[in-house]
């Protein structure tokens, strides 16, 4: 086989795999919608997942948000000072955290922590026939395993994004007021003047959508796990890699779309 033909076959196969993957994700999303409509939400499981996802992810999200806010402030302050605009640091950091950094970094951390746990949990259940045992007992795996995680993620993610943004702003404020001689009133006035509800809404909407995507991708990897511990490990890795990449790509298009609804830069 010559090289161009081989490349063509490789590209074709990759594209087919991609389409198959999209088809499987769509099928899972459809089952999830059916489960949502069924109204059997198993609130005890949802509460357990809120604790595991929301409560358990707080430390990682807070630390990420705080240090991102701090370092962003530290780097931008010097450059802004060159233009005599150092009082605008609060506004820039705040808008960036609300619109982009808060949801994206919280999403990436949750994809790593929670996405991996979901894929590993469900994957282990799959390869040890626990998922089949659920089916045999008349319990649909999507109803029992995916729906509670999905609902818990939808509840938790906006709060986690809000925490990430809040602690980023607190850290930014601490850096400017303690590290530099800028009066805190200036920082806060600019921050409040240039951050509006739309910026916060964008962060929350993104967090909500990222949460749904992470759950869908991670649960799909879990339910598709095969081949014992090796398969669970590979599925877990794929869950984190795919959900992180999808999150970054979706974030770009979401930013453009949300900018039409909530435009930036119009004061």
């Amino acid at each position, binding site marked *: 086989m010559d090289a161009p033909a081989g490349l063509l076959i490789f590209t074709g196969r990759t594209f087919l795999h991609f389409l198959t993957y999209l088809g499987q994700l769509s099928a899972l999303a459809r089952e999830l919608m*059916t489960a949502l409509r069924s109204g059997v939400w198993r609130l005890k499981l949802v509460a357990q997942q809120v604790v595991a996802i929301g409560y358990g992810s707080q430390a990682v999200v807070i630390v990420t948000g705080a240090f991102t806010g701090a370092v962003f402030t530290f780097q931008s302050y010097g450059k802004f000072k060159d233009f005599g605009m150092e009082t605008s640091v609060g506004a820039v950091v705040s808008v960036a955290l609300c619109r982009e950094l808060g949801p994206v970094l919280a999403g990436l951390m949750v994809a790593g922590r929670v996405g991996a746990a979901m894929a590993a949990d469900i994957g*282990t*259940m799959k390869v*040890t*026939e*626990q998922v*089949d*045992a659920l*089916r*045999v*007992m*008349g*319990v*649909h795996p999507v109803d029992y395993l995916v729906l509670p995680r999905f609902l818990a993620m939808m509840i938790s993610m906006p709060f986690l994004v809000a925490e990430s943004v809040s602690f980023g702003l607190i850290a930014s404020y601490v850096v400017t007021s303690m590290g530099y001689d800028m009066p805190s009133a200036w920082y806060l006035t600019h921050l409040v003047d240039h951050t509006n509800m739309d910026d916060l809404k964008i962060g929350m909407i993104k967090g909500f959508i990222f949460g749904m995507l992470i759950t869908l991708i991670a649960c799909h990897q879990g339910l598709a796990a095969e081949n014992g511990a090796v398969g669970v490990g590979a599925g877990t890795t794929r869950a984190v890699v795919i959900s992180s990449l999808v999150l970054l790509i979706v974030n770009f298009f979401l930013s453009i779309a949300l900018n039409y609804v909530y435009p930036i830069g119009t004061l």
Partner: protein
Amino acid sequence: MAASAPSTAPDANAAAFIELRGIHKRFGKQEILCGIDLTLKHGETLCIIGPSGEGKTVTMKHIIGLIQPDEGDVFVAGMHVNKLKEREMAPIRQKVSMLFQGAALFDRMTVEENVAFPLLETGLRDKAEVKRRVREALEAVDLGEHLEKYPTSLSGGMRKRTGIARAIITRSECILYDEPNSGLDPIGSDIIDQMILRMQKRYGVTSIIVTHDMRSIFKIADRVAMLYRGKIHFLGTPAELRASSDPIVQDFINGRSDVTG
């Protein structure tokens, strides 16, 4: 304990409870089942034997709709299993329960919670009734003292017996057992054989047992099906199995290694 035939033979005129017609199943390039035809009457106990990898578990999973055939039809209690979608399987899964080879207990639940799970999922909310039936099911498998333990702290035999308690608690009309005796000592194995016999005598449960334990077969089976090269190579009573002059059957039941050659 001497091998003995079960005391309650199924009614010869009873209607077919389970029927497999021309089942073909392929995984990748390998054809596992090449036309399986099998009929089971209500209350009958069928043991499925055969070399490893011949599709015994796959056959069993077709009955409960965990696997769909590439060709052929599966009927359980008059319902066309392979025409149903996953969410339409509930009526079949109320009638048929299954013990998995590794027991498939839920790691996050105690023994008591595992056994109670199918009852709670059927909508039973009376806590006292659930507790009573869990205790009854666990006592039937000699595990009444281990309610609070988690599956990871149980031995292989105890896990299997917990799996059986979970399979019998809903009092299904049919129970599928995937190698219930594997990895058990002779006494543990006998406890399970006695329990299968008890379920048949007391509740008229239809049982299908995938097993390699020849002693069990002669104790509990009404009929034996031997799978070989994707087909049912032998189907008959344990006495007919023992008397069979077929060299493949004889090699298998006597454990001679050239059977899979």
